[in-house]
């Protein structure tokens, strides 16, 4: 019974497929060697499509000239012109020009056949014989190698002009003891600018704001929440903390500050990078808690003088992505 069911199913399957194939090739005889399908109807259809394409193309030009070049109309007109031309060509290729199937002999290469073998032998002999009569081959070979090396070095050397020696370029930072924090409009950042849970972007006064080491995120938490390492105990006056704004994973700007509204059940305050979601615990001085970043976010020690925020020293670590010259405590 099961076998009969399977057979029935197989037959139904075949009939369905044959139906689809017939429907696709409906009205077509199996191709002879050469068939001339051109008919007045097909030719007229192609002509109509070509005229339509030309009209749509002219329409594109008109829309461009008069209708303030509406992007959507232009797109539709261009698509219509190109699409009708495509249809015309495809219909012509199937129903106007001669239909034929050709069988071509393939060129053969590299089969172990005698004639190929002979050619291969000739080729390799030509190469081999090119050194006939030369006695100091190793000397010449070594000299050739030396020339190649020297010229290669000469060709590669100018590449060094592209950029400076890495040296300290990736370590430079505008932050010193006493550098004032300013906002995007170069106004001094005040301690009162932030309430608990607040977040702002600051820069080193007088620096290029695009300098990776300049930008900071400044956040404010309740001072009693802080769990900073002992050597950073005085880095966060009034619960104000400053960190480099550039993620230590792949240098995106950190623009998310997660501050729990219901501290009992939420994870603690953290800075989050929007690119790969590296997450840094602000209470613990920028320690990584989630995501692919490995190094902590560099922290800037702060001090408040006359209500203004100033740096109390340099950043605690290298800004930006890690590279071979960056130290990491493991």
């Amino acid at each position: 019974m099961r076998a009969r069911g399977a057979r029935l199913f197989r037959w139904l399957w075949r009939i369905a497929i044959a139906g689809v194939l017939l429907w696709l090739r409906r009205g077509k005889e199996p191709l002879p060697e050469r068939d001339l399908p051109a008919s007045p109807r097909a030719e007229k259809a192609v002509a109509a499509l070509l005229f339509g394409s030309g009209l749509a193309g002219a329409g594109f030009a008109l829309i461009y000239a008069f209708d303030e070049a509406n992007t959507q109309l232009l797109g539709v007109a261009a698509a219509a012109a190109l699409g009708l031309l495509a249809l015309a060509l495809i219909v012509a290729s199937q129903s106007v020009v001669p239909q034929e199937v050709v069988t071509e002999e393939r060129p053969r290469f590299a089969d172990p056949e005698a004639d190929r073998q002979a050619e291969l032998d000739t080729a390799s002999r030509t190469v081999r014989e090119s050194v006939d009569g030369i006695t100091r081959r190793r000397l010449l070979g070594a000299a050739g190698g030396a020339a190649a090396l020297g010229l290669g070095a000469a060709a590669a050397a100018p590449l060094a002009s592209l950029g400076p020696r890495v040296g300290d370029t990736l370590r430079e930072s505008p932050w010193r003891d006493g550098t004032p924090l300013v906002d995007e409009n170069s106004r001094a950042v005040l301690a009162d600018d932030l309430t608990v849970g607040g977040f702002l972007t600051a820069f080193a006064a007088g620096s290029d704001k695009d300098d990776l080491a300049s930008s900071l995120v400044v956040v404010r938490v309740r001072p009693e929440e802080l769990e900073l390492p002992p050597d950073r105990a005085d880095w966060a006056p009034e619960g104000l903390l400053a960190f480099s704004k550039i993620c230590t994973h792949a240098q995106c700007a950190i623009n998310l500050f997660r501050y729990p509204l219901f501290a009992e059940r939420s994870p603690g305050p953290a800075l989050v990078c929007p690119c790969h979601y590296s997450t840094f615990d602000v209470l613990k001085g920028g320690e990584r808690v989630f995501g692919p970043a490995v190094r902590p976010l560099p922290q800037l020690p702060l001090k408040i003088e006359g209500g203004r925020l100033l740096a109390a020293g340099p950043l605690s670590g290298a800004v930006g992505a890690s590279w071979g010259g960056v130290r990491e405590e493991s």
Partner: protein
Amino acid sequence: MIRRGVRFLDQRTGAGSILSKALRYAFPDHWTFLFGEIALYSFLILIATGIYLTLFFEPSTSQVVYHGAYAPLRGHEMSRAYESALDLSFNVRAGLLMRQVHHWAALTFVAAIVVHLMRIFFTGAFRKPRDLNYYVGLTMLTLAVLEGYAGYSLLDDLLSGMGLAIGNGVALSIPFIGGQVGTLIWGGRFPGTEAFMSRLFIAHVLLLPIAIGSLIAVHLAMVATPHHTQFRGRGRKESNVVGTPLWPAYALRSLGLFFAVAAVLFALGGLVQINPIWQWGPYETYLGTNGAQPDWYLGWLIGALRLMPHFDVVIGGYTVIPNPFWGGILFPLVVFGFLYAWPAIERRLEGDSAQHNLLDRPRDNPRRTAIGVALFAWVSTIFFAGSADRAFVQLGVPYEGQLWGYRAASFLIPVAAYFLTRRVCERLRESEAHPGSGSGAQVLARNRKGGFDQLETRGAPGVIKSDRGS
């Protein structure tokens, strides 16, 4: 008239015999052969629209204050590059159309190459004598991805800047020389000097297009020399090609396909918004946006960067291999390395170094198909991991949980895909249940001794091969 034209050419170039052969070049008919052509035609559209764009775009980082047509950005400081891209979109007639067609064409170009690569892989078209050409194709795919990245990084909008920041981070992560590579390419520390923009621009509009264009020429020449592959069928042999001649039917059809591709791209460019740079705003190193997603062909890399656990190789206190290396460099190296190595691996595995002009159906070589599907499943899983943040926003699935799910899936799914595919292929091969291959029945005839002789086995390569791999 026509004869005179041909003679004119022949007497000056000697092209007569080549021409007469070329016009009769046979193209086997199969729908899967279209993908390569779609890639080629997308490239032509890219060149045409790209030339138009260069007439207006200025790759300059000099800072200007915007006073243009788009009101929300008026008064903002931005680079001239971004401003000229905005002007191109709002003030140049048909400028936005061309920009969007260019972007859609780029997405289509890479997609068509990837599907074409899958066709080549699963049908065994990469085997000798076409293995060299397969390497050429893979190289073009690499260049196409780089070219796309360079292209959307030029505009200096927020999205492109974030992409470059990540790119710089990945460059810095190259072991030992990363720091120097980064400062060489960018002319210093990220975001780099004015010269970096020129370098990116010339790479995008000259160096990479010329490289891709030259490789396309090599690719097509190396397709034509041994002629096209073909599937098995009546009258089709290793030594011949059966198909539609280039002139006139195939030429018309292929030109038709070119215009159809162009029509679809122009319809998309006109009707479907892509990369609305005015919404992202200008880039500064200290700005970021949530939900930033790259063009699709970089999705697998962002997925890998996100999935990788936090882990550096630290030697003597220095981060010798920083984390972005794993997802941004090692992962694509493994994927492409495997694809480059596959023809040689398969020759070893199968002990088969013969010439192949007839294609396999995917089932004919269950192991190859299963490995291909597993690789594809692996890369796709990691690709989807790149959109986990969007799934979190849209569907509320916790990001952290998704990440662990994807980490597990990136191991389990490829393995499951391998065994499932292999089983399906083997079953299909045993039953020969393909609708197109006829009944697959064996014709027997009774002989004088009362036994049976097999007269014919129709088009069933799996049966011939069934002593292997099962």
